[in-house]
C-alpha cells in the first residue's frame, strides 16, 4: 500500500467518526457512571473505614446495630425459603397447566415491580393492622402479631420479591424438553420422582440466581418495612431502618458502618448472581 492510499484509508475511517465517536461515548458513559454510581459508593466505604476495620467491626457489633442486622438477615432468609418454593411452584403451574385465570395470574406476578414499596407497606397495614378486623382476629385467635413484628416484615419482603424467582425459573422451564419426563414416566417413575430427578436439576441454577436476587433486594428494603414494622430498636428495626435512624440523629459513623455492612452483603450477592449467569451462558454455548 502506498503512503497516499494509507492516508486515504485513515481519512475515510476518521470520516466515519469511529475513533472520535467511540472515545466520546466511552468518556461520557464512564463519567456518567462515575458521577451517579461509583463516587457515591466510594464515599460511604471511605467514611465507614475511616476508623479502620476494627472500628468498623465494633460499631457494627454494638447491640442495637447487630440486632437490626440479624433481624434483616433472619427475615430475608425466611422469605427466601418461602419465595423459592412458592415461586418455583407458581412458575411450574404457569408453564405446565391450563386453568381459568391463568393469564391474570401471569400478569399479577409482575405487579409488585410496579407498586411502590411504600404502598405495599400501607396495604399490609390496612389488612393486618392491630385495629383492623383481620389483624385483631389473628392476634386474638392465634396470638399472631403481624404488624410491628417479624411476620409483617416477612410478608412485605415476600410481596416485594415475588417476581424474582418466578421470572427466573419460568423461561428455563418453558425451554425444557418434556420427552425426557415422558421417558422417565414410561420407565415407571412417579410424579414426585420425575420432578426431583428430571425437572428440577436444570432449574437449580436459575432458581439460585432468582433466590439470591430476592435476598439482595430484601436486605436493603426500606419503604415497605418502615410502615409495616415501624422503628422499634431490638425488636422490629431492620438494618435499613437503623441506618435511617442514625442519619436522623446525626450519628454519622453508626450510619456509615451499617451502610458498609449492607453494601458488602449486596455486593457479594450481586457478584454471585453475575457468576451464576455467566456460567449459564457458558453452558448454553456448549
Amino acid at each position, binding site marked *: 500500500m502506498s503512503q497516499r492510499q494509507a492516508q486515504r484509508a485513515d481519512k475515510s475511517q476518521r*470520516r*466515519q467518526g*469511529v475513533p472520535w465517536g*467511540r472515545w466520546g*461515548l*466511552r468518556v*461520557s*458513559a*464512564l463519567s*456518567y*457512571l462515575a458521577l*451517579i*454510581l461509583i*463516587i*457515591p*459508593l466510594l*464515599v*460511604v466505604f471511605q*467514611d465507614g473505614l475511616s476508623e479502620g476495620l476494627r472500628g468498623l467491626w465494633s460499631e457494627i457489633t454494638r447491640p442495637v446495630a447487630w440486632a437490626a442486622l440479624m433481624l434483616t438477615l433472619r427475615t430475608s432468609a425466611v422469605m427466601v425459603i418461602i419465595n423459592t418454593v*412458592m415461586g418455583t*411452584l*407458581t412458575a411450574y*403451574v404457569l408453564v405446565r*397447566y391450563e386453568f381459568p385465570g391463568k393469564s391474570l*395470574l401471569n*400478569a*399479577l406476578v409482575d*405487579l*409488585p415491580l*410496579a*407498586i*411502590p414499596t*411504600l*404502598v*405495599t407497606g*400501607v*396495604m399490609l397495614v*390496612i*389488612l393486618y393492622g392491630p385495629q383492623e378486623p383481620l389483624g385483631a382476629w389473628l392476634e386474638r385467635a392465634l396470638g399472631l402479631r403481624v404488624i410491628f413484628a417479624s411476620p409483617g416484615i416477612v410478608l412485605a419482603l415476600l*410481596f416485594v420479591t415475588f417476581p424474582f424467582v418466578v421470572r427466573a425459573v419460568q423461561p428455563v422451564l418453558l425451554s425444557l424438553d418434556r*420427552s425426557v419426563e*415422558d421417558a422417565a414416566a*414410561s420407565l415407571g417413575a412417579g*410424579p414426585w420422582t420425575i420432578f426431583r430427578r428430571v425437572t428440577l436439576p436444570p432449574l437449580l441454577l436459575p432458581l439460585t440466581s432468582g433466590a439470591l436476587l430476592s435476598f439482595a*433486594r430484601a436486605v*436493603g*428494603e*426500606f419503604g415497605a418495612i*418502615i410502615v409495616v414494622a415501624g422503628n422499634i430498636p431490638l425488636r422490629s428495626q431492620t438494618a*435499613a431502618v437503623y441506618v*435511617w435512624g442514625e*442519619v436522623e440523629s446525626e450519628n*454519622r459513623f453508626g450510619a*456509615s458502618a451499617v*451502610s458498609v455492612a*449492607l*453494601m458488602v452483603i*449486596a455486593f457479594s450477592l*450481586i457478584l454471585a448472581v*453475575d457468576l451464576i449467569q455467566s456460567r449459564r451462558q457458558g453452558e448454553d454455548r456448549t
Partner: protein
Amino acid sequence: MTPRPSLASARPVARPRRWLRRALVAVVLLYVGVLIVAPLAGLLHGALADGLGAALATFRDPQVQRAFGLTLRISLPVVVVQAVFGTAVAWMLVRDNFPGKRLINGLIDLPFAVSPVVVGYMLLLLFGRQGLLAPVLQALDIQVAFAVPGMVLATLFVTLPFMIRELAPILKAFGIQQEQAAATLGANGWTTFWRITLPALRWGFVYGITLTLARALGEFGAVLVIGGGIQGRTETATLYVYRALDERQYVSAYSAALALGAFSLLLVLGTEFLRRREEKKR
C-alpha cells in the same frame, strides 16, 4: 421438527393425576390471593371507606397537589437523563472494549440491591452540610441536599439499571450489519445512529422508560434521606403518604397511595398491552 408418534401416545402416562394438578393450582392461587390480591383489595377498601367523595377530596388539597407535582418534576428529568446516558452506557457495554468492562457491567446491577436509605445517605455524605463537597457548593451557592437536585440524583442512582438492561440485549441482538451497510452507502455515524440504530431500539426505550418512570414515581427511602421530606418543599407523593399515615389522616394516605399504585400499574399494563398488539401485528 420430526413427528414422534410413539412419544405422543406415551404422553398421558407422564401427566400427574388430576387431583394433584388441581391441588397445585389451588395452592398457587391461594398464595397469590393472600399475598397480592388481598392487600390490593384492602387498599381499595381503605381508600373508599368514607366514600368516593372523601377519597377524591384528597386530591383537591394543595399539599397533595404540590407533592404529586414534585414527584413528576423529579421523575421526568430522571427519565430523560436515563434515556440519553442509558443509551451511551448500553452502547459502551455492547460495542466497546476496554479493560475493566466486566467490573463496570457488574456494578450496573448494584442499585437493585443497595438499600435506598444508603443511597440517600451517600449523597448526604457528598452534598450534605458537612459533606465532602460542602465548601464547593457553598462557594457556588448551589443547594443539592434537602432540595430537588439531590432528590433527582438519588432517583438517578436508584433507576440506573433499568434503561441499560433493556437496551443492551437488544443492541447486542441487533448486531452491526445494518449499521455497516448504512456506512458503506455513505451515511455518517450520526445518521446511521439516528436512522438505523435508534429505531431498532424502540421497544427497549418503551420498556426502559416505563420501568424507570414506575420506579422513580414510587421511590421513597432515598428521597426521604436526601430531601428530608420538608413539607411543601421536598415532600414527594410517597413522602406525603408517609406523613399522612403518621398524622392518622388515613383516608388521605390511602387515597394518595392508591393513586400512586394505580398510576404505576396503568403504566406497566399499558406497555404490556402495546407489546401484545405489536406481537399480534407480526
